[in-house]
């Protein structure tokens, strides 16, 4: 965001470009395959079997999807709960990603459920089974999805307050609807902190439980991964992937929309990643020794090599890249580092849910069918399309001149953001930024600069 306020606003580009058409085509193919699966069943559309009851729809759409949406709560924590104002610019895109991401996690689950029409059973207290880890995950994900929509609501209000124009006869309701939006906006503004706290809490709960999920598979999961510490490791890796995911999207979105990449704020964000990754790595190593399987790492087997690759790509390399200021401050360094963390996380979740999972029947194999891949790719493509539509029409990215931009500024001012903005406008380097961002001193320094 650095100096977003001093940037001149940029007219949003048109929605369709050749690249967007390609993405739309992937989404369309995925949509058709999805319809096929919903009509003709799992057996017809997938390569799932009794030996491999779960495939990529759980491994990628759900397990990776939940973790990669962690940018939402991690950046909300930083900006809204720790009041690190410099990060406000990344909060909205991260929130949008999380809201879209979780929506598609829910869709992914639904696609994978054999009796998807019975999904509502999960909401019936009479059927709740609180020993089930999946129950905890399901309830938390449902609640968090609701929280995400509530957190996103002010952005929708900003877009429509003062601009409500319903078609035809409904036009008469413009005034009342506008009034309702203003009322909701005011009320929500007062209680939003509750939802931010709730969002972080629910995230911590289900990100960790997602790790507990595979503990029950026991020896079917390779000892390098199977551990009662899985919940802690899943939680830490979700924390770790949050900011890299924000960096990844921000770089791609800004490039795609013809905007300058916000290197300054992203490199500030990237400072946290090596710390969390080191912690994650520490727990992983400690756990291997604690369970006495550290030797397995050097066994030279497929599993051990996979483990080494996963840890190197997802933790060791990004720690080095993000810890070196010169790399961290370049767009290339930021992007490569972020990609590595994301790739490492995806490898980890796939290892735990699919690759390091081996059924008793050693002859059994699972490779996803074309339709499974098409549906997953289609979901990802659809998420990109929705993201693009929303940022081009709602005040999400600060530099874009979309309806509601002025109202968004008002909100930001009310949150005490302008002081941080003015600081950003000064040409000082990262060090001063860091000093400024050390919470408590912020007000005093802001006064001093004034």
């Amino acid at each position: 965001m650095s100096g977003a306020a001093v940037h001149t606003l940029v007219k949003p580009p048109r929605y369709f470009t050749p690249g967007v058409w390609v993405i739309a085509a992937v989404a369309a193919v995925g949509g058709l395959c999805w319809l096929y699966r919903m009509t003709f069943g799992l057996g017809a559309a997938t390569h799932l079997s009794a030996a491999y009851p779960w495939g990529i729809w759980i491994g990628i759409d759900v397990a990776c999807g939940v973790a990669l949406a962690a940018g939402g709560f991690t950046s909300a924590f930083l900006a809204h709960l720790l009041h690190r104002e410099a990060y406000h610019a990344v909060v909205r895109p991260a929130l949008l990603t999380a809201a879209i991401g979780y929506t598609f996690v829910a869709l992914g689950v639904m696609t994978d459920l054999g009796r998807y029409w019975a999904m509502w059973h999960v909401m019936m207290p009479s059927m709740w089974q609180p020993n089930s880890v999946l129950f905890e995950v399901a309830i938390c994900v449902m609640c968090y999805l609701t929280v995400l929509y509530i957190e996103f609501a002010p952005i929708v209000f900003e877009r429509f307050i003062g601009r409500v124009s319903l078609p035809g006869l409904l036009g008469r309701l413009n005034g009342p609807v506008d009034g309702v939006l203003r009322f909701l906006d005011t009320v929500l503004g007062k209680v939003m902190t509750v939802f931010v706290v709730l969002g972080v809490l629910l995230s911590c709960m289900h990100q960790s439980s997602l790790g507990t999920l595979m503990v029950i598979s026991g020896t079917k999961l390779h000892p390098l991964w199977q551990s009662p510490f899985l919940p802690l490791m899943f939680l830490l890796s979700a924390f770790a992937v949050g900011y890299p995911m924000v960096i990844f999207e921000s770089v791609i979105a800004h490039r795609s929309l013809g905007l300058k990449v916000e290197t300054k704020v992203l490199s500030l964000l990237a400072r946290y990643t090596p710390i969390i990754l080191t912690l994650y790595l520490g727990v992983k190593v400690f756990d291997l020794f604690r369970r006495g399987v550290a030797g397995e790492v050097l066994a030279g087997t497929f599993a051990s090599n996979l483990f080494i690759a996963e840890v190197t790509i997802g933790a060791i390399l990004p720690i080095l890249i993000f810890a070196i200021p010169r790399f961290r401050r370049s767009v290339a360094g930021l992007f490569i580092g972020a990609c590595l963390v994301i790739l490492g996380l995806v490898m980890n979740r796939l290892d735990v849910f699919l690759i390091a999972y081996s059924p008793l029947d050693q002859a059994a194999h699972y490779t996803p069918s074309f339709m499974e891949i098409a549906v997953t790719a289609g979901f990802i493509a659809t998420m990109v399309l929705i993201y693009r539509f929303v940022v081009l029409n709602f005040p999400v990215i600060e530099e874009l001149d979309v309806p509601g931009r002025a109202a968004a500024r008002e909100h930001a001012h009310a949150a005490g953001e302008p002081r941080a903005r003015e600081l950003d406008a000064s040409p000082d380097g990262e060090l001063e930024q860091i000093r400024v961002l050390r919470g408590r001193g912020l007000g005093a320094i802001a006064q001093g600069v004034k």
Partner: protein
Amino acid sequence: MRESLGEPRRVSLPVLDGPAIGQPTTDRRGFVKLTGAAMVALATGSASAGHERVDLSDERMGVLVDLTECVGCRRCEFACAEANQNPHGKLEDYDDQSVFEHRRRPTPESLSVVNRFEDPADGKTPVFTKIQCMHCEHAPCVSACLVGAMEKQADGSVTYDASKCIGCRYCMMACPFERLAYEFDNALTPRVRKCQLCQHRTKVGQMPACVEICPVEALTYGKRDELVKYAHELIAANPERYVDHVYGETEGGGTSWLYVADRPFAELGFPDLKTRSRAETTEAIQHGIFQGFIAPIALASVLTGFNFLTKRGHKA
């Protein structure tokens, strides 16, 4: 023939109207009952925080399989298909021995299957293993199911209720024996299929179909506790005939189906499981983290505190 001991083969049937056990009751393990000690407990190496044993009825039933008796006639497969309204041919069709060429597992159509294991060492007679759901004492599938479609019943059976099931198949991921089958080819109403210990038959005083049909009495239906005792007596009385191992007595926390054999079970395709059910481990973690809701409440308080403190500092 093995030396016979007082046959518990036809034992009095238990009262079956009791409530389902293994299901949470609100005061015992409500979701709302949590202590935050989980991570601490884990970190200190005791994963048993929050561990609560499922109450098991003394009246629960089980089946003892004497693998030294089984002749691989597959009549149990026929009886099972018939009792569960699965497609089946005539009894003679089950004389077909060619199915033994491949290792089989229970399928939606055959909830119980027999496999043949040749003796690797010498020309001893092959061993036939009848396998089906083991009806675990502390069943991971029951623990895994988020809508309570899997239940451990007072009579020892682990039953599946399709009317609750949402089709997530987490039970199959959880099953340590991989004995659950799924109707993948059913587009809209797929079911998990498993042996239900012939609950519909035992309720009306009949034997499980496989036990009833077995021509060599390799299967014994009875109270599980008595069967364990009986199995040990059998082994003690015929030490040359059996390895000293009652499979299912402790495996995975114990199962309702018990096996005795003349060679190590590892050679017969039976998984080598710890004596602790995996359900115990996950429940210890889950209930540890959430016990008394202390951890979530503490986290929420800390977050709110952060918000308050940094806001004040910011305004100072």
